[in-house]
């Protein structure tokens, strides 16, 4: 039954090819991200273009999240070492950002090494 359903699906691959994703800039991309949680250190492989929330999820670390648009702060984490770029942020103050807090759902690493605290 499932095969029959699949066969009826439109398989227009041209459209897919047209929407090919631009290759992420990997100049300052870490190969791993170190995440601290409840006193334990987790070293997770990092794939270019991922947000820190996506990396944590892939590593099955229980990092909270909310709107995932940078509006609520439910995924706040602290940077111990390294730099990130936030794609959007309407909730953290300049002071928060200066103190090292960032939104995991919006953060892309911009340094070759990155260490953050999830707790």
């Amino acid at each position, binding site marked *: 039954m499932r095969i029959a359903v699949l066969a009826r699906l439109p398989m227009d691959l041209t459209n897919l090819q047209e929407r090919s994703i631009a290759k992420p800039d990997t100049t300052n991309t870490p190969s791993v991200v170190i995440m601290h949680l409840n006193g334990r250190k987790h070293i997770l492989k990092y794939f270019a273009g991922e947000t820190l929330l996506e990396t944590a999820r892939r590593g099955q670390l229980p990092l909270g*999240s*909310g*709107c995932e648009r940078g*509006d*609520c*702060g439910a995924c706040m984490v602290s940077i111990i070492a390294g730099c990130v770029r936030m794609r959007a942020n*309407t*909730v953290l103050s300049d002071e928060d950002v200066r103190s090292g807090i960032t939104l995991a759902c919006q953060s892309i690493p911009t340094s070759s090494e990155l260490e953050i605290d999830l707790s």
Partner: protein
Amino acid sequence: MNEVIRRAPNLKWTDEFHLSHDRVSLEDTISPSFFARETEAIFQRSWLYIGRVERVASPGAYFTKELESLKTSLLVTRDKENNLRVFHNVCPHRGNKLVWDTYADRETAGRCKRFACKFHGIGFGLDGDVERLPDAIAWLDDQARDLHLAEVPFGVWYGFIFVNLTPGGPKQSLREFIGDEYWTGFDNFDFSARSENYSFQANADANWKALMDGFSEVYHGATTHKLPFAIPPIEEMAPGATHLVDIAIRDHHRYYLAARHPRFNFDYERETNALATGPRYEFPEGFDVLPRAANPVGFPNWGTSSHMFWPNLYIQFYYPGWYVTYVMQPLAYNKMRFELNIYMPKPRKFSEMLAQKSCALQFVEAGLQDFSLLEAQQLGLEARAFENYPFTDQEVCLRDFHEKIQAAVTAHERERREAEHSRA
């Protein structure tokens, strides 16, 4: 408020509380129409326990609470001024559920700076006011200014958060509901210091009252919990050895005290001693003191005391100095969620942590033994082979509970009819 009644020698508890000896109908446990009636009469109109304050210890911490039978989701948080807040977990713009993760019908918890609706991105501060309003120019008149999360009446007693969803507002204060006996009855017991929390939930195809009943007496322990606790057959024990030592009915709440049984207790002291890694367990200073209401008769061989708060909360104290809460959350006439939380002092060393975990696991295991009978009981009751059931004197708390459930539903329906009559 009833006085605490102590049993006279040679008298049955049932007689002490002036309850009848009649068999009890359990139609309230198997009737879909009664479920709808008790939801409206009891759950819609009572103070309901939703969680401990430690879950929202600092500004920005939050948790959601689902009350499925009331079709209500609550958002509990602490604002920037450190005030506890309870809101309906609903965006006032288009009615979208505000805070949830992945599955809209499941509870969640975390910490944030603002609650952002997933629909149009409106952001609400921790105090419920609008903080972020995308596309502000499109709003009509002053309607955006009036947007605020809907507050829910709540109260806190010893760190237990209660809400009241009575239409038009609560008809009695939380203090009146808890009663004088209990309002100060747990003084000298620092609930917040028992901050090591083991949490467990399970759903069953059974009515919520079936598990309320299950925990309302203890003599089932000799059968249900025979293993793994190696409890001897009841015939080999002294007469009444498994009976409750003291019982009190306090308005709509109930309490019982059970003696310490050498085999059936949950001493993590014993666990610690069994582990080669640590010395004999010693109480943290001040943790060996029981609150007055947990042992009001000063019974020396105190084992546990269980406090049943109307309608669906149990607070149970255990030796040495820890406590448990049970909430029987109604989902449908034959469906419920069992919410078990164990609260212990913070372990001071690794051996204590191991002992606590072992103790908590045994406790959950025993809870599951009770829980596993529920669906069989629901099926048995729904067969309607009997119209009513002969509760023993040890089941006096169940008898009182079912009587009060029925009385609350009848009283509410009478009030409603009278109100409709006077309007007509």
